[in-house]
């Protein structure tokens, strides 16, 4: 069944469902003043399944985890965030989180599909024959998915704090989770993200020690800096020195920085270009 469409066709389908979820959420907020929780969730779930198919086709074609260019990295990050949302979203019961996740997934998938340069070439055999390095890369990007969700819950936190301080509790503010719930989920996501990135770095460093020339200093420095920044934020939060609005802003800013850091990290890899798209 996967062979029915190309990888990009599957991924376009996924992006359209994410877009539909985001548009439905926007319509619901504007006309009804409330997020459309269940329907957005269903649209995201369908998009997620299509994205799995697309990434599966691409993975089969490249013979590994599809993380060979900016397009694949963006798709994988969106998929990671969705994976977590579909699990966390059910217990969190926040329609607004679904709406924001739909927005993020739409942006990441549509932009990556729309910019041809991001998928014009890809590095072949980036992991060699070593599955552990592939695991390292997948873990690192999955942690970015966690940080993406953390950034979204932090945005919700900022909205909630604004609504409480400005005494605007009606409208769509009434669908925001409580300050304490958002804070707890934020700390948990931060802890999970830091642990995943730490595991990824540990796996990567075990192979870097054997061949220090295999990774550029820039990539090493930036990825370690991202982990240190998040770990520091976690430590400060647990100590009670980084709380409430400052904690939320820090998480949003760190994710923006982490996303930006992907550009030099990706560019620092050894260029081994090959055509990216799979044939039908």
């Amino acid at each position, binding site marked *: 069944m996967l062979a029915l469409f190309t990888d990009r066709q599957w991924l376009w389908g996924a992006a359209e469902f994410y877009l539909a979820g985001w548009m439905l959420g926007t319509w619901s907020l504007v006309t*009804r*003043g*409330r997020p459309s929780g269940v329907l957005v969730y269903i649209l995201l779930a369908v998009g997620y399944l299509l994205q799995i198919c697309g990434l599966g086709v691409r993975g089969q074609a490249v013979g590994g985890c599809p993380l060979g260019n900016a397009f694949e990295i963006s798709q994988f990050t969106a998929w990671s965030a969705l994976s977590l949302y579909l699990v966390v979203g059910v217990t969190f019961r926040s329609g607004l989180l679904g709406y924001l996740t739909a927005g993020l997934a739409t942006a990441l998938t549509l932009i990556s599909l729309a910019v041809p340069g991001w998928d014009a070439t890809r590095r072949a055999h980036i992991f060699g024959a070593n599955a552990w390095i592939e695991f390292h890369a997948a873990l690192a990007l999955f942690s970015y998915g966690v940080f993406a969700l953390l950034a979204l819950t932090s945005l919700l936190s900022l909205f*909630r704090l604004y*609504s*409480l*301080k400005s*005494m*605007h*509790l*009606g*409208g769509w503010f*009434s669908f*925001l*989770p*409580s*300050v*304490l*719930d958002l*804070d707890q989920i934020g700390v948990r996501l931060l802890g999970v993200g830091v642990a995943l990135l730490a595991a990824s770095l540990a796996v990567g460093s075990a192979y870097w020690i054997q061949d220090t020339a295999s990774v550029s200093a820039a990539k090493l420095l930036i990825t370690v800096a991202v982990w240190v920044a998040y770990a520091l934020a976690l430590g400060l*939060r647990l100590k*009670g*020195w980084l*709380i*409430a*609005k*400052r904690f939320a802003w820090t998480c949003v800013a760190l994710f923006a920085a982490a996303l930006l850091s992907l550009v030099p990290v990706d560019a620092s890899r050894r260029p081994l270009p090959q055509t990216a798209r799979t044939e039908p």
Partner: protein
Amino acid sequence: MNGALFVIGATHHQAPIAVREKLALPGEAAGRLQQELIALPEVRELALLNTCNRVEFYGVAAHPTATGRIQAAFCRQQHFDVTEFERFRLDLSGRSALLHLLEVAAGLDSQMVGETEIFGQVKEAYAAAQAQRGAGPVLNRVFQKVFQAAKHVRTHTAINLGQVSVANVAVELARNIFGNLTTAQVLLLGAGEIGEKTARAFLNRGAGTLTVASRRMDRAMELAAQLGARALPFDQRESRLGEFDIVVCATSSPEPVLGAGLVAAAMKKRPTRPLLLIDLSLPRNVDEGAGRLQNVFVYNLDDLAKIADENRRAREAEITKCRRILSDRADALWPQVEVQLRSSNGIPKPSAG
């Protein structure tokens, strides 16, 4: 009126509180009266909705004199003059009676528009009617459809969003900060009426524990006993402030009893857990500077009144939309009820239990 759906009674719209006090039916008396009325040959089916804002008899008449008999029996029991009752009387039949019940169950007819308690009260009224065999095929269908419609209105409009009383707004704020209140520790400073009302609202919404502190320890102990709370000497509020999540400040002190420095010191012991300070005192008892601290939320009487006002306006804006939905429901349901009324005409009424 033979075989017709009707509602007769008195509500807060027409009857002032002094009249409603006289018309109020205590629990046992309501049960007895309902049994008596169900047994009337003129009444085929009957349900009694009895709340602090309304006494309403919903029923199906077996004879045109049914509502007159009910009115007479009710006034006799309450020792209330029938002519006087007629001045405040609500008397509707057919589709209008159906629409009225729809609006009542959805909270549109409530004094506090959109309140949800009435839905439970209508359910209780229906359950009581069923238990006493007052509900037959017509009322069964009507009430079940009414419950569906009321739920639809609540979930598809913003009619019940936002609280409209000061005490409930305080609780709503707490829920926006702490979510579930079961682990929240509440401290009430002052033992006056408004503080007590707010403390009760917190307890009703499941607040974890309540502690009462007042300059008069005997009054604090008395109120604590009434509320099932603990009492705390007033001068210990400073050293123990950090133990509480929500502080309701309602003292008559002319000066702040919670200064910014004191709140800052308390927050050092619990930096990651928010602190909600509800200041119901005039002059204000919580230093304004406390609100600028991280994770500290301060609201005074004006703030609460402003939020309540906004919520009230938002609910009122939804009324037209709700009325349209309920009117459509009444239009769809009424033909079915008419069929049920015609077919139940020849069937003997359910025997009272």
